């Protein structure tokens, strides 16, 4: 486990509540972004991110450090996102796409911004039609830049399974994105 994470966990176990705040500040952005990429809606992602940290707060005193804190956090995040998507149904999650707001373009060129928005919409749509576990793996691998071994630990499966699933997911994404790729 990362030395800083270990120090924070130990401090929390000693009763220092500020250590938990420090942990939240360190990981909130990544947790939120995973949830946002998986669920799309800002409110949904924010709610799930809060649930993640509530669970962490409850379970941290018993955290033995057998896996890295980051892996543990991401596993909780992915599981909660999968539960959330299952509860609400993929149709509801997809309607959340409409409320999306994305990073503004670096310049104010309206044509470029329109292109970026179009790309974002298409990519979101392509990721969204993937089955939830494939979607989770794509988010972890492509957007969080995690290694296959780490993705496997988070998803609770073998590294080979992750590779095979990713390959299948990339094949689907390639097909979905092909029209846009040809037009660019």
């Amino acid at each position: 486990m990362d030395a800083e994470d270990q120090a924070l966990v130990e401090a929390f176990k000693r009763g220092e509540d500020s250590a938990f705040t420090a942990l939240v500040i360190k990981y909130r952005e990544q947790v939120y972004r995973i949830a946002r990429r998986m669920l799309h809606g800002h409110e949904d992602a924010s709610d799930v991110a809060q649930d993640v940290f509530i669970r962490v707060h409850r379970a941290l005193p018993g955290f033995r450090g057998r896996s890295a804190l980051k892996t543990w956090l991401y596993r909780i995040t992915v599981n909660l996102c999968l539960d959330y998507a299952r509860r609400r149904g993929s149709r509801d999650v997809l309607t959340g796409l409409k409320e999306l707001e994305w990073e503004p373009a670096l310049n104010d060129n309206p044509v470029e911004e329109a292109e970026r928005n179009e790309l974002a919409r298409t990519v979101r749509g392509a990721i969204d039609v993937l089955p939830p576990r494939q979607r989770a793996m794509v988010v972890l691998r492509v957007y969080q830049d995690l290694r296959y071994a780490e993705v496997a630990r988070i998803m609770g499966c073998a590294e080979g399974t992750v590779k095979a699933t990713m390959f299948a997911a990339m094949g689907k994404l390639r097909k979905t994105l092909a029209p846009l790729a040809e037009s660019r």
Partner: protein
Amino acid sequence: MNCEEAKDLILESLTGTTPPDRRRVLVTHLEDCSSCRREAAGMEHTMAMLRAAPEPRLPEGHWAEFMNALDRRVALDMTGWRRLIRLLRTPRIAWGAAAGTSVVVVALGFALFVQPFAGSERAADESQVDLSGVVTESVVQSLPSMSTALTSWKAGLSAPDVSYELISVGGK
């Protein structure tokens, strides 16, 4: 390297995690295999599009709101027993609690096992008979045969307020 192995490596190499020697083997394969070359180009393009998609934008003041809401939820979540468990789990409190428990156990042990014996000794003391008013000089003189019995009695039950001299007088 066959095409199946190459496909595994293509995906891996897109994010730069392939060791250089394996990457060289893949490049050699791609030079000779047009099908895998097309596959690699397609994957590369797809990955580039995925990564080009802009990051979600956060509303202004989001994290301040997030932290406030989280603090409130944590406070609500920390019900009485959970707060107590959290408190007991902190090492300083845990050691204090262990020390306190030890003191209570020792005190209970003392109360349950040591006190009854002390009580029986006191009871034995209290059961001694005060003979001062009964064994007088006249009684001893009138019953000289009591001398031997009194001597052994003193050795056994030891009535402290019967003077030895008095018994000795009786024994003469």
